[in-house]
């Protein structure tokens, strides 16, 4: 699907290209820097890809969209547009996402399977406690005691409760 047409990013000129170039470091599924294929923003020969003639103003609007959407702005900011009264559109392209701070899993604590976790349909934090909806046994289990102890086991495992609620 590569196109010989110039990339929309090229339309911004050398200065803009330099600003737009961002490190792809840290991404696992994105191609290497500069490896994005040029994106065809308008159908060839003035026709839509399905062969239909474009509506008047289509090429212009596509060009404007390209300039707006590929513009070099603060990567932390999305672009807000008004599409209809009362509705804004926020655009966040993937390059901007890649520029955001990445949070990963620092520690992970497994609550284990205290005899009965089966059919878990949800869980929520309640302060230092965790409430788990365990549909298999028609109950809600709560786990307390905070984060992991030194062994990496859930410190509050022993406090799991499963009492009749009546």
């Amino acid at each position, binding site marked *: *699907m590569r196109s010989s047409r110039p990339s929309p990013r090229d339309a911004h000129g050398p200065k803009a290209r330099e600003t737009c170039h961002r490190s792809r*470091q*840290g991404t*696992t*599924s994105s*191609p290497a820097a500069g*490896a*994005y*294929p040029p994106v065809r*923003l*308008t*159908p060839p020969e003035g026709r839509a*890809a399905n062969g239909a003639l*474009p509506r008047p103003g*289509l090429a212009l*609007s596509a060009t404007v*969209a390209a300039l707006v*959407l590929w513009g070099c702005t603060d990567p932390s*900011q999305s672009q807000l547009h008004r*599409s*209809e009264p009362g*509705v*804004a559109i*926020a*655009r*966040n*392209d993937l390059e901007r996402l890649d520029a*955001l*701070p*990445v949070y*990963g*899993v*620092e520690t*992970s*604590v*497994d*609550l*284990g*399977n205290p005899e009965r*976790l089966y*059919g*878990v349909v*949800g*869980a*929520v*934090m*309640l302060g230092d*406690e*965790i*409430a*788990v*909806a365990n*549909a298999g*046994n028609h*109950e809600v289990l709560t786990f307390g005691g905070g*984060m992991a102890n030194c062994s*990496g086991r859930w410190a509050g495992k022993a406090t799991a*409760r499963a009492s009749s*609620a*009546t």
Partner: protein
Amino acid sequence: MGRKGDGPGEFRHLTWIGAIGGDSIFTYDSGHDRVSVFSADGRYLASWRVGLGLVGLWRRVAGPARGGDLYFALGPAPGFGPVSPGRGCGSIRVLRFNRATGDLDTMRTDPGQDAHSFVLSERPHEIWIQPVPFCPDGSFAAGPDRLAFGDAAYPGTLITDEAGRPELEIHLGLAARRPTRRGSERMIEHIRATGPEGFQERRDRFTGLVAPRDTLPFFSGLPFDRSGLLWVRLYSFPWEETTTLVAFDREGRAIRTVRLPTDVELLDIGSDHALALRRDSLGVESVVLMRLAGRKGGPGVATR
């Protein structure tokens, strides 16, 4: 707390859990069609019959919203019907359950006639969303004063206020990835959504760029955290090691990304933690609490 049965605080088919503040646990039992509330220490407090009935091919529960109201979304199953950009492929019916009064207005009303606006019912407890290009992907969330709907056709996310009035659409652009010699390659096209011409334009460009069968829903799962941030999980392929979640603020700005292992199913997320369900190869379930920390690049690594 709870056990199998039909009495107060007992469950037949527990399907959802949520919390309000730090002291109340909400549950929804689809078997009884009933919302029950427990205190944090496990005491049964109250329950209400919701009265949804057997409508909709799927139902999602979300909330609690302000005042403890819950929202129920009913609609076609994800992927049901023609999924075609520029065409509507379903509608979502949203009901608000008022915890204070136990009311749930289920009267059906006609969707709006304006094809390109998200005209909703005027009834305060019922919201119909059926714009022509809207294709619900089954994602639904309710925050303190907002609702969010995933749209597989754009793809994107529609944010409304608590009455269902549209406020914001979030688009990350249309994305598709195809296997190449170097692995997975992501192709991106940004789209406009400014009216009938915009929809037409988008459809043409969509089919010209990649075949529809190669295009995958970009969003799935839409939880709000307690601070009001909307967390959207981007689509990930099975062979990818991590899945990415993006937090959007009230103005729709992406402010943070989090990478989690793909072998877990997210249950709850906050500013510094994520709760997830993990199944081992034998199907044994466990709940995992993950502490999140910032790092520069690199996938999230689960350590035990």
